[in-house]
């Protein structure tokens, strides 16, 4: 690869890659078929220190940044995008605590997440509030030393398996998005339950469930920051996590390309390996170039974030948008190149194509990403 990495970055990448190659790839078909939650692989990830990459050393993490996290996410996604989603989603949910939590919250939760002892989940979406996140209806009512939460969160990655949930709820309906707050809800809190597991097209090694809050009572210390900044917390969190989705796209697409090239070299038709035909060779060339371009964008955005950039929503959106659209195209092309074989479950590419689709949908649909970008451009260019 063309990026100079420090020794530590190499170590992170190699560790994730070995895990993907030796533990994930042999199991991915089975995990996909059975839709099983891969506790054993997650346990090993924890032992390899993969969960605490961007969490500060003071809280038990390795103290690296967005870039190092992306390196790991990319390699895991190369193995299986479902595993990468489970992994990345727990990281995503740690961000609200990391960015806005108080010392007590950071100490209590971050080290458990960094050690991989507890998985985290981010609960924003609802059935009536997907792209329109401001339409959320889950409420949090102050009650003495507690808050009582009521509502149903939908499409929650890790729902039911995670121990720590970041729930975005309305504390003051009158104030619109300024009346929304972020809370930490733990498995075991009274009134917290889960819906059935969604049966998904792809990323089936990742579990998606409804998170149901029925008079869920939590101590008031679980409020993150203060009332009214919940929306900001959510949006900021997504800004940090979108490059991670980009990294999943890059890793997934790379895996698909690897399969496609390998296949094209050994599949003979008309007396030649099909890679020697321009139609196929050019497809592979496009795929490789697009992957490299997406990688460059994701890496650049990560480094920008790690350099303590103040305003990077626009770039995060770009990295997610480009890499996810690219992954959908590359995985689809990979199936095409593997032809009939690619269409069967005996080869890994049909799963990769099914996995890729969600990247264009979750963490803000690509239509929303384009909205964000258009608004950012509009603002940037000021008055004309």
């Amino acid at each position, binding site marked *: 690869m063309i990026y100079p990495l420090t020794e*530590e970055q190499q170590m992170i990448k190699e*560790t994730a890659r*070995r895990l993907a190659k030796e533990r994930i790839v042999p199991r991915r078909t089975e995990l996909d078929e059975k839709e099983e939650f891969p506790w054993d692989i997650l346990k*090993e990830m924890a*032992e*390899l220190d993969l969960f605490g*990459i961007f969490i500060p050393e003071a809280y038990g993490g*390795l103290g690296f940044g967005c870039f190092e996290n992306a390196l790991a996410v990319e390699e895991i996604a190369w193995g299986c995008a479902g595993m990468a989603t489970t992994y990345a989603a727990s990281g995503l949910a740690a961000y609200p605590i990391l960015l806005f939590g108080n010392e007590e919250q950071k100490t209590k939760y971050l080290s458990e997440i960094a050690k991989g002892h507890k998985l985290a989940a981010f609960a924003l979406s609802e059935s009536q509030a997907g792209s329109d996140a401001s339409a959320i209806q889950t409420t949090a009512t102050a009650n003495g030393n507690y808050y009582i939460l009521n509502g149903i969160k939908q499409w929650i990655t890790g729902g039911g398996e995670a121990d720590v949930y970041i729930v975005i709820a309305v504390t003051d309906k009158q104030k619109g998005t300024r009346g929304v707050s972020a809370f930490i809800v733990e498995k075991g809190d009274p009134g917290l339950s889960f819906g059935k597991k969604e049966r998904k097209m792809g990323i089936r090694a990742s579990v998606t469930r409804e998170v149901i809050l029925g008079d869920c009572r939590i101590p008031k210390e679980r409020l993150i920051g203060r009332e009214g900044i919940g929306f900001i917390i959510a949006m900021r969190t997504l800004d940090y996590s979108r490059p991670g989705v980009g990294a999943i796209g890059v890793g997934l697409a790379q895996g698909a390309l690897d399969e496609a090239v390998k296949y094209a070299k050994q599949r003979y038709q008309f007396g030649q390996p099909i890679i020697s035909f321009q139609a196929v060779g050019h497809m592979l060339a496009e795929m490789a170039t697009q992957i490299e371009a997406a990688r460059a964008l994701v890496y650049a955005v990560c480094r920008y974030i790690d350099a303590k950039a103040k305003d990077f929503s626009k770039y995060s959106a770009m990295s997610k948008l480009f890499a996810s659209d690219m992954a959908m195209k590359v995985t689809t092309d990979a199936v095409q190149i593997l032809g009939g074989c690619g269409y069967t479950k005996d080869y890994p590419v049909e799963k990769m194509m099914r996995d890729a689709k969600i990247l264009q949908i979750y963490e803000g649909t690509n239509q929303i990403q384009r909205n964000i970008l258009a608004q950012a451009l509009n603002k940037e260019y000021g008055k004309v």
Partner: protein
Amino acid sequence: MNFIVCLKQVPETESVKIDKKTGTLIRAGVKGIINPYDLYALEAALRLKETYGGQITVISMGPPQTEEALREAISYGADKAILLSDRLFAGADTLATSYTLAQAIKKIDNFDLVLCGKEAIDGNTAQVGPELAQRLSLPYITYVHKIKIENGKVIAERSLEDGCQTLTSSLPALMTVVKEIGQVRLPSIRGKMQAKKAHISTWGAKDIFAIEEKIGFTGSATRVIKIFSPPLREGREIISGTADEQVRKLLGHLQSQGILK
């Protein structure tokens, strides 16, 4: 508990060359890997350390590049590593190797269990473990796939061709392990970082009070005369038919080739 794991760096099979003079492998400059069975021995030690606590020291006799293998062992979780390296150690057969390792272990002195892989994938003699135990006067159990420590004794299950055998031994002892001991873990990020920083001592012949006649090429009782790939047999024939027919055909062959009158 103090564990010693003996490790050998072996050539990666694709890139091996042979010194025509001595008939031994030219190890310098060839990519080395930790002998897979020794990784299993290390994994066994790591699991025992997790259960019973203690420290793991890995030792290896080899040229300077062996240090990479020792660092890798630290990345898996070994606490300390010692490289036995000296020009005088070169060209050692199993007798000289076990002598050298034994001298080093005598110098380390404080240990409860020595773990080795069942054999090296380049020599495949499986002799060093047992020889080492003899030199150290340790009870030893080979082909172990399960280890438990109870009341200061070690209980080991070993794999035999036709079954399993469970043996109990006092400590200290030596064991050679097979791959059924358990899946080797992957090195963690912290492990790799520690490996990079680790200080690895190098001991030469003088450091381990080795008698020159007993080490290296001079200390070897066996010589590698030749290493060659066995020639592919040509002209194979499968004799088919009933038992009677096969016997008749075989007899015919042996007679026509003058092997039988």
